[in-house]
């Protein structure tokens, strides 16, 4: 009768368990300095998660909070560009990699800051075939490094711009069990609602607090006369979804071409155009999210 796996102490010299423990300890010590971590998700591509994340970050920062943004959409990174730091790079120092610093002192990390400029997809060195076996692990490790190895400093809030796909919430809740909650982003489109709903359902399954639902593209503001029309469908999808899950409806963000263009160009629209309906909507959203964090609801 030979010894069993459990009877043998250690792994012969690599101390893989010790290395993983060290990774977790570094992640914990870094994240301990971040007061609240909030994931912006929707499950579906094209609902404007990055737009909402970027402008919510600006609205929170304009309230005086220290804010960080981690673009968790590794394969579709766009938040760095939207926050005006698309061409910047990360500096690596012994105490950690330094994030790019956007307007209002927002600290930003995105895969964009590591990839070359141009149409360069994210790809990893490794065996050219059967990449599906290890690519998911590689991406989860990249997320771990972005959380643990970036010198985020003291933050009031770290917003995580999640990729499409509800399954990413599972990975995130493993990495960040202290995640304060999620904000679900939807649009009036009837096709979007079930996908966003599945994402909220996944969060509920994971016992993640759902801070509420935001309806993006809630009406179109004419740049000439300021009147509101509804080319994306009638408003109400966000309110319906919130009602279904018994979570707060955090408000609607109207579509303003000027806000969309400014955000695409990395210009801080909600700060530069504070009187616009979009800026007001984001200020309201920031107030509700902060209140949910600090107001004792959680």
């Amino acid at each position, binding site marked *: 009768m*030979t*010894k069993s*796996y459990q009877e*043998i*102490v*250690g*792994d*012969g*010299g*690599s*101390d*893989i368990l010790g*290395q*993983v423990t*060290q*990774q977790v300890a*570094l992640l914990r010590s870094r994240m301990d300095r971040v007061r609240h971590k909030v994931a912006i998700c929707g499950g579906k591509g094209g609902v404007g998660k990055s737009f909402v994340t970027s402008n919510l970050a600006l609205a929170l920062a304009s309230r005086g909070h220290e804010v960080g943004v981690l673009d968790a959409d590794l394969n579709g990174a766009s938040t760095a560009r939207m926050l005006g730091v698309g061409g910047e*790079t*990360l*500096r*690596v*120092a*012994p105490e*950690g*990699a*330094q994030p790019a610093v956007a307007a209002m002192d927002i600290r930003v990390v995105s895969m964009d*800051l*590591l*990839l*070359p*400029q141009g149409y*360069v997809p*994210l*790809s*990893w*060195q*490794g*065996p*050219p075939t*059967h990449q599906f*076996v*290890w690519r998911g*692990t*590689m991406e989860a*490790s*990249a997320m*771990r*490094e*972005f959380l643990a*190895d*970036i010198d985020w400093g003291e933050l009031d809030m770290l917003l995580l711009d999640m990729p499409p796909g509800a399954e990413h919430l599972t990975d995130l809740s493993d990495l960040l069990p202290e995640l304060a909650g999620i904000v679900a982003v939807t649009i009036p489109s009837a096709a979007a609602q079930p996908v966003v709903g599945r994402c909220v359902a996944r969060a509920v399954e994971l016992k993640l607090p759902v801070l509420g639902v935001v309806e993006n593209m809630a009406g179109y503001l004419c740049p000439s006369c300021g009147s509101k029309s509804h080319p994306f469908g009638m408003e109400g999808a966000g309110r319906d979804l919130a009602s279904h899950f018994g979570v707060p409806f955090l408000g609607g963000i109207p579509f303003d071409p000027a806000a969309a263009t400014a955000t695409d160009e990395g210009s801080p629209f909600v700060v530069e155009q504070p009187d616009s309906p979009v800026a007001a909507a984001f200020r309201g959203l920031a107030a509700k999210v902060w209140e949910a964090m600090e107001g004792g609801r959680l």
Partner: protein
Amino acid sequence: MKLLCIACDEPMKLVESQGPTEGSVALTFGCPRCGQRTALLTNPGETQLVRSLGVQIGGREGAPPPLEMVRSTLARQSAPHSVEEAPGVEGAGPEWTDEALKRLEGAPPFVRPMVKKAVERFARLQGCRQITGEVVEQARNAWDAPGGGPPPGMGHSHDGD
């Protein structure tokens, strides 16, 4: 994974780790009682799975440098041109052995400084304090990997994938 010497019913200890070479890591384990040795050879998929966890087979001395896994495995990245390293990091360059310097002489003179810098960067990412001929070979193998982006004069380009 743990290895057991059946004859002695004794856990085997890691004696040596080599590679990765062509995607394979060679791990030699020995029985501390009878001295029996066994080699474990990983296939490229197994090597990659371990690599993707951000751990090092054979153990690690000290904390890994920031973003080690991402920076050492991204096939195409802005480094070394735009991912800057703070002076404190750049200054603590690994030491070159004579053998490694001899291998470096194999690169054309006009690209040698660039290759030297790239090997030093690779060594730092791997946590090596000394650059041996083996480290140079490992760096070259990493650049030879698909999408590995070798510096000119070493390995082959895979930019077209």
